[in-house]
């Protein structure tokens, strides 16, 4: 397919399909994340990227026969390798023998959170999750370093002018979309908060909530324009928030260190170990949510802002 727009739309549909597949495989938390990330944010970011890189592909290919041969050989070797694997759905598979029974049987006493995925994510493997949050933060900083532009062409007065003209044009284009979005955005934000704080009991948690929260802000930006969104959401503030999320997570770990326990051992946070676990999970999920939401918004703003700047440059030159 030569039209990249169609390619990206298809990959969005693929993301949604794999999310429904994850529901069928009992992985509700994962499905939640995949639906918001694979079908939502990643499609959006790719679309933002092709607005800058052009939407058609040149039909040149590197030796397709050679590539096909490599792929077929690798594929058959991998399929040969699966012959020793345990059968699908078998309860005796090695993966179910090691630590998983401990999580399933003891997590209620040790952590006191019904959603095992949350208790493993935030408590048993809290250190891993910390590393992942730092990776997301670093990726956000990377995008910022690559795409960020110094904005000075118009200043605040120019921005207000632009917003005025946008508001006037609002009566002509996307009227229904804008009004429906205005009604929907509070509910999307509310739903994100629900997902954030209900993650202990049902599917959800900081990662999903952060992405949904960012989606609401991105929806607003797309319909009301970058300059309106820039006035509502301060760029440097959101960058600060991305760092605060990581800091909240890290300082929970440091507090337990200062109390004489291991890093991220939440029983240090309260006299009752289970209450300490609850508090610790709440705090670090909050940190995760803040970082994920701000990094997603930063990434989108930088893609969209770059596009605006390119247009400005072209207008100035012509």
């Amino acid at each position, binding site marked *: 397919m030569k039209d990249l727009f169609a390619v*990206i739309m298809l990959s969005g549909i693929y993301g949604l399909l*794999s999310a429904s597949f994850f529901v069928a495989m009992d992985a*509700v938390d994962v499905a939640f*994340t995949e639906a918001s990330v*694979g079908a939502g944010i990643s499609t959006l970011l790719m679309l933002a*990227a092709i607005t800058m890189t052009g939407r058609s592909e040149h039909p040149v290919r590197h030796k397709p026969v050679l590539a096909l041969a490599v792929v077929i050989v690798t594929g058959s070797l*991998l399929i040969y390798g699966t012959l020793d694997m345990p059968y699908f759905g078998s309860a005796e598979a090695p*993966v179910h023998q090691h630590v998983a029974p401990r999580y399933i049987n003891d997590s209620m006493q040790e952590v006191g959170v019904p959603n095992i995925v949350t208790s493993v994510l935030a408590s048993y493997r809290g250190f891993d999750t910390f590393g992942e949050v730092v990776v997301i933060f670093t990726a956000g900083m990377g995008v910022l370093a690559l795409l960020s532009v110094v904005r000075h062409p118009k200043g605040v007065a120019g921005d207000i002018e632009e917003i005025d003209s946008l508001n006037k044009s609002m009566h002509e284009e996307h009227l229904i979309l804008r009004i429906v979005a205005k009604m929907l955005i509070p509910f999307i934000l509310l739903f994100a908060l629900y997902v954030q704080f209900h993650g202990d009991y049902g599917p959800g948690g900081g990662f999903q909530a952060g992405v949904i929260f960012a989606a609401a802000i991105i929806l607003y930006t797309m319909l009301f324009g970058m300059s309106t969104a820039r006035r509502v959401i301060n760029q440097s503030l959101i960058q600060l928030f991305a760092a605060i999320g990581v800091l909240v997570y890290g300082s929970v770990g440091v507090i337990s260190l200062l109390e004489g326990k291991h890093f991220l051992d939440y029983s240090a946070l309260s006299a009752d170990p289970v209450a300490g676990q609850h508090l610790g999970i709440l705090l670090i999920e909050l940190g995760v949510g803040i970082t994920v939401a701000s990094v997603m918004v930063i990434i989108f703003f930088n893609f969209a802002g770059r596009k605006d700047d390119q247009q400005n440059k072209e207008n100035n030159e012509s």
Partner: protein
Amino acid sequence: MILGLYNYWIVVVLMMVGFYIVIAHGNLIKKIVGLTIFQTSVFIFYISMAKVDGGTAPILAEGIKQYSNPLPHVLILTAIVVGIATTALGLALTVRIKEAYGSIEEEEIQEKDNLDC
């Protein structure tokens, strides 16, 4: 029954589709889409390993004996979000390459590089 392994075969097919796109296409955006397909096939690999026959979602409730394995779910949940962050970084690089070279086709970029030396 050897057919009990079909989940791995689906994963291998998806993975090879993604791999083919990455090596056979010169367009950088398509390469990133190919990487995403490759990545999702690994997610499906982990999640299908976690499935236990007759199990339910790993949220503790009264009267349920068999749960699916929560550990792969945790690994993949974080992997998805890290995946989107790195994809965004890749797209950002693509945008900068477009600005620097005026093209996102691998061969044209190569030609321009060769002219420079």
